[in-house]
């Protein structure tokens, strides 16, 4: 709803510019690859030890730049390998040894040699089409008279006004095709680069194990804290009230004979206390697992949140089936937190919540029309949500420029547990 629409034409032009940048970058990469190979060749004579570490670092800078560009331009996310070993305490010889032993370095090098050949040629295709098209459309009309003899443009022999016009049209067509192909070419380029640029499998697995250990520890901590909270709430709330209730009942029983009026007062007191205990239990249960979520699933539970909010909340759900219960719960509390933030801090009047399921993950976006400028480092709400989502390998992105609007995007990879059967 708060999208910034960019026209197809300008997007194509931007893509052409990016192709140009990528092809220049491929040249730099090839030069740097040669330099690294030179350094390796010079290792036996000693000079290579001094040359290799800076060259490897420079190559990593280039490959890092390619990774971030792939994500920025085409949304293809490429996980970086482990950082190069840079231990300043070591001497040049040992440092070079560590680099040579590093798997990421060799992958960088392989990429440096393949990227100009594969990626460079690929991004050159739309550029070549546009440049050749520009020659046909802009230059041919003026020069064909001068080089009348044997002047061919593509498959058209240009020697009359009619064929010149044909060349002009063909040139325009080439330019159009080049423009149209540019965004797709960029995407293809990112995808082709991914296997070369991404971290080697072993280090990816190591990273993942580390991350899982981390999130599991935090999940256990969170669970323990939650159980403590429930125990404390029961202890200080409902349980205490029930004890008080028992005591009051006891007094009422003793007073029944001697002072029926006082006993009656006490019994009314008992009723109030029991209502309080019920209210406590109700709030506690709601905090653990909202009944509407258990009854109806995520879509209706979020609709119910929308009804409770002070803001105008529009909910749109496109969920093809039922999600696993823990995912539903995490998503529910995440959306709840985002709505609470919007109500408290954003100054918004309207909020849009969208729940969709695409490519094996649940995506929830909460967008408000407030003044923006939300800072995730302030306050603990979003940090808590992020931690909760972490357990599911989920992500939380906050986009909140000054002046708004604020968009919170949450993604949780998960499988659908059952196809949808009811129509609601």
């Amino acid at each position, binding site marked *: 709803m708060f999208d910034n629409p960019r026209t197809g034409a300008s997007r194509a032009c931007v893509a052409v510019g990016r192709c140009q940048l990528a092809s220049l970058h491929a040249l730099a990469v090839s030069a740097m690859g040669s330099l690294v190979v030179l350094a390796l060749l010079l290792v036996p004579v000693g000079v290579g030890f001094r040359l290799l570490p800076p060259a490897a670092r420079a190559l990593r800078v280039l490959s890092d730049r390619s990774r971030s560009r792939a994500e920025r331009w085409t949304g293809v996310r490429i996980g970086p390998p482990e950082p190069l070993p840079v231990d300043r305490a070591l001497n040049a010889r040992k440092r070079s040894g560590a680099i040579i032993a590093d798997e990421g370095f060799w992958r960088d090098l392989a990429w440096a040699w393949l990227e100009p050949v594969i990626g460079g040629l690929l991004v050159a295709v739309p550029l070549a089409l546009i440049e050749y098209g520009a020659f046909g459309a802009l230059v041919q009309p003026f020069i064909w008279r001068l080089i009348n003899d044997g002047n061919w443009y593509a498959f058209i022999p240009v020697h009359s006004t009619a064929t010149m016009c044909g060349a002009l049209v063909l040139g325009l067509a080439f330019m159009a095709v080049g423009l149209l192909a540019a965004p797709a070419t960029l995407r293809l380029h990112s995808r082709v680069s991914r296997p070369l640029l991404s971290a080697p499998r072993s280090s990816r697995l190591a990273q993942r194990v580390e991350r899982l250990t981390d999130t599991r520890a935090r999940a256990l901590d969170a669970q323990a804290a939650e159980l403590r909270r429930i125990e404390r709430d029961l202890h200080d709330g409902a349980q205490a009230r029930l004890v008080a209730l028992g005591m009051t009942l006891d007094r009422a029983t003793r007073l029944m004979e001697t002072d029926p009026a006082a006993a009656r007062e006490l019994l009314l007191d008992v009723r109030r206390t029991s209502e309080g205990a019920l209210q406590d239990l*109700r709030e506690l249960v709601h905090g653990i697992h909202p*009944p509407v979520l258990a009854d109806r699933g995520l879509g209706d539970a979020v609709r119910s949140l929308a009804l409770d909010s002070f803001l105008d909340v529009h909910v749109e759900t496109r969920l093809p089936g039922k999600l696993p219960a823990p995912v539903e719960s995490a998503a529910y509390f995440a959306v709840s937190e985002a709505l609470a933030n919007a109500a408290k801090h954003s100054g918004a009047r309207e909020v849009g919540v969208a729940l969709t399921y695409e490519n094996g993950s649940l995506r929830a976006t909460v967008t408000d029309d407030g003044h923006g400028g939300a800072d995730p480092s302030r306050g603990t709400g979003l940090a808590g949500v992020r931690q909760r989502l972490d357990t599911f390998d989920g992500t939380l992105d906050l986009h909140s420029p000054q002046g708004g609007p604020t968009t919170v995007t949450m993604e949780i990879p998960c499988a659908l547990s059952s196809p949808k059967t009811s129509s609601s």
Partner: protein
Amino acid sequence: MRVVLAEDLFLLRDGLIRTLQEHGCEVVAVDNGPSLLRALLAEGDSAPDAAVVDVRLPPTFTDEGLQAALEARRRRPGLPVLILSQYVEQLYAHELLAGGEGAVGYLLKDRVTHTEQFIDAVRRVAAGGTVMDPQVISKLLLRSDARGRIGTLTQRERDVLELMAEGRSNAAIAGGLHISESAVAKHTASIFTKLRIDPSADDNRRVLAVLAYLKR
């Protein structure tokens, strides 16, 4: 009066049957969704005058009771149903009110401890009235207030509106607020003017109008 009672917990069902019988109701008790739907749609002599329904019922233990009640009301519009639940959920309140026929109620289960109020609620629903739990009403009012739609009402008018939305008659409102009935009528007229709702002599339509306004 013939009342269908749907409640799966034995202790509660037993208590509710007693309470209803003590107040002269003939009770048909069921404990799951499908038999509730059958009992609600019964014809002839066994047709119910009202139903008291728990939201959560077997076999699914989700909102089976509410679904059965909504389905029965779809097939037989205006069938009086009083929903009892451990929780009041705005979404469910909206679904019950959506038809606009009235004769619905939605109360927290613990309200049954006030026997008179509970029986009164059953009777009012059976008579085509609308009874909403104070929790639902106060939330709706809070929300509308925050949006500035009823910010123009005075405190007294808001008190009247709250009781009115709970389904009370002018006499009951007057009693509850310790003011005269003519004062209530004056406040009511003023509320309708401020909220731009056409006043109606019928209590039920009055409440529906208020709720319909609030739930926008």
